[in-house]
């Protein structure tokens, strides 16, 4: 008689399930090809079809009649940036929304009729961006575009003002030498104590500074800022007006006061000349936007957009296929009556589970290897970390996914139900495992759902191996192992109950005895 109870008997039974399940899958090459090539084609299409750049928006400009904006539409479109593709200029909002409704345009940029007056009154003029997006992500893209475009418009306006100021600054060449000449006359008059000549010089200087102030106009405040930036000096707003006041105060002054004051005025004129020169030579774009941002990946990780999704696709598909195989294998045994035969045999639930786990490990790893090979050859995907860690991460997904599969099989009565449950799990995974949306963007109260999914650990672990080139963190591995163990124990309990013969509970046994007596 065969050894039913010993270790060898148990091993024989487990190995029988392993061999049977592997053979059953491998004998269906068409099924395997469908399962591997199908997802690969999806990946391939996604890879060649995915455009990481923000979408170009077909833009219609709403320019009120008489605003003169229609003539400047090209300039405005350029100011909105490369993301905006101007497809038309219309006079009313209704016409613009009609174009959006007919898909001729994606957005409408509405310039207010009284923009200049609003700004002059000290308020911001509102440029409205109209759209009809319902997709929150696409709506977000439009909102980001609005913020960026308006910032760009504001910069363009400021830049125009600066250019105007620089042009005006060229006109101050005449008053400035006149002021210098007047200062020299005043210095000579002060030394010769010629009050009349000093007074005439002072009068000329005052006239020249007043003239200079008028020439500079609004640019004087810009100049003050330029002065601050170039010299690191203190707040100097109103320096020209202060100089004029001091010149006026020289009327009736004594000899020593005159000399000291004239030296100070001469130095200020030098400084003013240098500032005007700086102002004229500076790039208007730098003056308007002195700072720009630059994000630098200090690890020099240059991940191709397509490659970023490969760990997600591999983890998700390995989880889905392993889970489906596991669920179907047990439901099939049950639906064709094999479980009844197992109950009559000396088989235990643990032996059956061990065999099935091992078979699914082989099939799951084969699927993972095939998908990864496809990614390597078709997309030149090369993990920079160890292949061993890569394989272990896939193994972790395979082990944990099986547990879910076996638990689902306990709930499913038919094969189609098992497939439906597997599809629901896939849907949950797509949203919660970090495939498209980072887990960090989920509320903490919802994150436990993510941590119940094997793909969550798989994606993160494969990303760490593939892109950072390091072993997955122990928290990640530990979490995945704990999940796999808990699910395996749950599956074992369900498997035992499924295979165990109809042994009555003590209460039922007593009732049976009583009824028989």
């Amino acid at each position, binding site marked *: *008689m*065969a*050894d*039913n*109870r*010993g270790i*060898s*008997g*148990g091993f*024989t*039974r487990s*190995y*029988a399930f392993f*061999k*049977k399940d592997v*053979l*059953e899958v491998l*004998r*269906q090459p068409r099924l395997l090809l469908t399962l591997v090539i199908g997802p690969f084609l999806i990946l391939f299409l996604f890879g060649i079809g995915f455009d990481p750049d923000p979408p170009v928006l077909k833009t219609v400009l709403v320019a009120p009649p008489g605003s003169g904006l229609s003539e400047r539409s090209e300039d405005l479109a350029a100011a909105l940036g490369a993301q905006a593709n101007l497809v038309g200029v219309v006079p009313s909002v209704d016409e613009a929304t009609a174009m959006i409704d007919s898909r001729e345009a994606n957005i409408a940029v509405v310039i207010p009729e009284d923009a200049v007056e609003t700004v002059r009154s000290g308020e911001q003029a509102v440029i409205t961006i109209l759209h009809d997006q319902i997709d929150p992500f696409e709506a977000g893209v439009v909102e980001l575009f609005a913020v960026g475009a308006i910032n760009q418009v504001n910069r363009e306006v400021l830049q125009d003002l600066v250019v105007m100021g620089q042009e005006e600054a060229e006109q101050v060449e005449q008053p400035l030498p006149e002021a210098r000449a007047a200062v020299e006359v005043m210095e000579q008059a002060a030394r010769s104590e010629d009050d009349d000549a000093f007074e005439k010089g002072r009068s000329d200087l005052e006239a020249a500074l007043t003239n200079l102030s008028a020439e500079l106009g609004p640019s004087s405040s810009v100049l003050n800022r330029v002065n601050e930036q170039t010299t690191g000096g203190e707040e100097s707003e109103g320096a020209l007006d202060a100089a004029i006041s001091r010149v006026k105060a020289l009327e009736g002054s004594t000899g020593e006061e005159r000399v000291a004051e004239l030296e100070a005025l001469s130095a200020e004129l030098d400084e003013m000349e240098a500032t005007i020169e700086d102002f004229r030579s500076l790039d208007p774009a730098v003056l308007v936007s002195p700072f720009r941002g630059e994000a630098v990946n200090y690890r020099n990780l240059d991940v191709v957009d397509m490659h970023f999704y490969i760990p997600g696709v591999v983890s998700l598909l390995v989880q889905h296929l392993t889970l489906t195989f596991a669920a179907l294998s047990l439901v099939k045994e049950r639906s*064709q*009556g*094999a479980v*009844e*035969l*197992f*109950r*009559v*045999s*000396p*088989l235990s639930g643990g032996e059956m589970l061990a065999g099935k786990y091992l078979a699914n490990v082989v099939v799951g790893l084969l699927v993972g290897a095939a998908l990864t090979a496809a990614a390597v050859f078709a997309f030149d995907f090369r993990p920079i970390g160890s292949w061993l860690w890569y394989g272990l991460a896939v193994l972790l997904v395979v082990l944990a996914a099986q547990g879910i599969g076996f638990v689902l099989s306990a709930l499913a009565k038919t094969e189609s139900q098992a497939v439906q449950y597997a599809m629901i799990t896939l849907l949950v995974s797509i949203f919660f495992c970090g495939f498209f949306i980072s887990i960090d963007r989920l509320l903490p109260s919802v994150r436990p759902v993510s941590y119940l999914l094997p793909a969550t650990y798989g994606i993160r672990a494969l990303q760490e191996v593939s892109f950072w080139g390091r072993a997955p963190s122990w928290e990640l591995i530990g979490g995945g192992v704990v999940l796999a163990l808990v699910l395996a124990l749950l599956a074992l309990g369900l498997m035992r109950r499924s295979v165990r*013969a*109809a*042994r*009555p509970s003590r209460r*039922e046994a007593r009732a*049976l005895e009583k*009824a*028989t007596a």
Partner: protein
Amino acid sequence: MDELPQTEPEPELLEEAKAEPELAITTQRLTKEFEEGVGVFDLDLEVPQRTIFGFIGPSGSGKTTTIRLMTGVVRPDSGQLTVLGKQPVEFDRRDRADLGYMPQLSVLYPELSIRQNLSFAASLFGMGWRERHQSLKETLGFVELWDDRHRLLRESSGGMQRRLALAATLIHNPELLFLDEPTAGIDPVLRRKFWDHFLELKDQGRTLFITTQYVGEAAYCDQVGVLADGRLLTVDTPDGLRRQAMGGEVLDLKFAASLDPAQIEELVRVASATDWDQRRYGEYRLVVEDAGEVSPAIGAWAREKGLELETAEPYLPPFDDVFVELVGRLNGGEPNGG
């Protein structure tokens, strides 16, 4: 036909047989009710070892439920059940290895070959490679599938699949076999072969509990239980069933001429017949206690009366008729016939 390894009764089984006629299965008022009126009720039967016990009944009569109770797959609601000396719900692994179970539906795997399917079945009972290899060869030979062993099951005929299912039941050399409608849906030639296998297995010292809807198969059994609506109507030998169904033995008489009523009345008295019927001109069917005993008396009476009795033969009614008659009688209906 090839044979299983144990073509001769196993010495252990022979010893047990000499000691006392042990019972493989006993039930007392065994009841399992699934829903109102569906299940088996108050089942009382005894199945001796090394016999074939046929369990006959229409579809839904409770045959499979009885097997599931006996194999420990389901628990009884009440009553007592002992299989090989233990309650099935208390079976351990060693006990289970003594059972062979062939379910009604095929539980084989289409993607595996015939040999791989049988190897899987053998492995369930912990048979190691060497032991399995030898047993596979012998068992596949027994069911005449050795030459087709590499054929995938999905490419095999229905008959081959049933033979493989039988082989999977025998592969671990069990003492007690439960075969749930093993001949359902197979052609008469193969059905006959199956029964040849079963008789051979009985000769090897095994006990077979076989359910069937083919009433004619009762003739192969040592004992037959008739089940209807979850209740055991009767248990008897095949001959005993005929006797029960017809009220005794049936004797067909053929005279050269038709008998008049007075002659018929006298014939019934001489034969102690409990029933009679005229089938055709000069042909009469009598139900008697013992056909062998009354035949000479009838012959003497005919000679005395100058009647020419051409033939006097016992009639063995088909088991289909026996079953219909029995169900009618035991269920309280009117029996057919005269």
